[in-house]
């Protein structure tokens, strides 16, 4: 599965797609492959403040639990209720399945994250 050029990536295998001062956050195809069948996603409440590099939720597969780390700081504007209802969407289409929408504290921070080519290089 290709890693789209329209977003940034972290070494923890999250993606973030920034539009103005708002961003969508999800996990990468590599991450969902490592997890296997996703069965549960725990996400913050709307209004929560999240800090770059800090856990904002968790994602569980049949065999393991993983923390979700915020790529950038901001305030949660929206939580994807569909993904809570149908966590398997993360396996099916990870790059179209955002988990939270965040109003960014500093949109400029995105430049410090990996682009698609850098992320794929990290995966080797």
């Amino acid at each position: 599965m290709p890693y789209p050029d329209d977003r940034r990536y972290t070494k923890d295998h999250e993606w973030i797609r920034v539009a103005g001062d708002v961003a969508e956050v999800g996990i990468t195809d590599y991450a969902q492959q490592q997890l296997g069948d996703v069965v549960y996603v725990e996400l913050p409440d709307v209004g929560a403040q999240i800090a770059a590099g800090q856990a904002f939720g968790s994602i569980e597969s049949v065999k393991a639990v993983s923390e979700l780390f915020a790529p950038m700081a901001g305030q949660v504007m929206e939580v994807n209720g569909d993904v809570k209802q149908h966590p398997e969407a993360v396996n099916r289409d990870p790059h179209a399945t955002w988990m939270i929408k965040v109003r960014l504290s500093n949109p400029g921070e995105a430049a410090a994250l990996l682009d698609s080519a850098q992320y794929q290089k990290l995966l080797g």
Partner: protein
Amino acid sequence: MTVANAPNDPTANVPNDPTAPNDPNALSRTPLDSRHRAAGARMVPFASWEMPLEYTGIAAEHLAVRTRAGLFDVSHMGEIEIAGKDAVAAVQRVVCSDPARLDRGQAQYAGLLTPDGTFLDDLVVYRLAPTHFLLVVNASNVAKDFAWISEQVKAAGGAVAVDSSSRYALLALQGPAAPEALQPLTGVELAAIPPFGFAFGEVAGARVTIARTGYTGEDGFEIFVPPNMADRVWQAILESGRPVGVVPAGLGARDTLRLEAGMRLYGNDIDDTTTALEAGLGWMIGWSNERFIGRDRLLQQKEQGVARRLVGFEMVDPGIARHGYRVTQQGEPVGVVTSGTQTPYLKKAIGLAYVPAALAGAGSELAVDIRGRQARARVVPLPFYKRGRDAVSG
């Protein structure tokens, strides 16, 4: 995202770090290793073996076993044989069932116990001949078990113990379609093998032992095959089973299937700190066997009652309890989760936990500390899934 696996969950391994030093001698490979890789399996280290965790995905393989059938390579399991004129007495000494009550061609689930009545291992004992028994033990315990059994058998005299693990590959064909997939390949009349019975015969031209045993809660067979014939038998079963939907299945599905069926996993749910009575396995104890090691302690515990019990629970609040999580009451730890997952078939978050006897009754309200959050759970009767009772509807 970082994967934080429960430390003792044997299926919770992430793939090998590709940057790790390449040491092909570090792990054993089953005779089917190249088949697994060709089929795209994710291979993981497990008990010094490299084993398939999943082929297409744990959930899909789990459902295949519940509704059709799955074929597992469980060649990592250990085999220990005890034979000799006093073999019955020797086996009676080391296992806590009563193997004297087995006829030739019958098997039993049993524990290998310490003098304290706790588990060195759990196993299945097969009576191959009047004075010849086969014990199938957990892969991680083969060396420990064999050392212990040899010592006990030697002390008793009149029998010998042999570690014959390398003489067997073991395939498990599990699921409602298992008889249909296997029957065309063998002259053995499968319908005549009762649960926990076994027969000698041929499958796809290989000399095998076919046992109606398993670790999934489904009907099915475990087939003991000479290692050099394993590939042929594996391929033949997959081919014969294709029309009825048989697929290869990995250790990930094996673990979720056994948990749904309420079966205990050594190292998670039972170990050398827990007894059969605490683990709710009192039914496996053969009290007519007066020879087994650990009997006195179990008898004492039976009379005094146990302080804690292994129970099944379902989560009431959202979240999944995992191995090692604390069971709490008013925020205070009172027990521990030993296994937990979200099961693909029942689609519930379930688990096993040791709790004080007073909380062990069905319907008891528990809380599980899920990474700092006290999530409500409820004790339910085991097994979570019972074949026939919990069939697919709609």
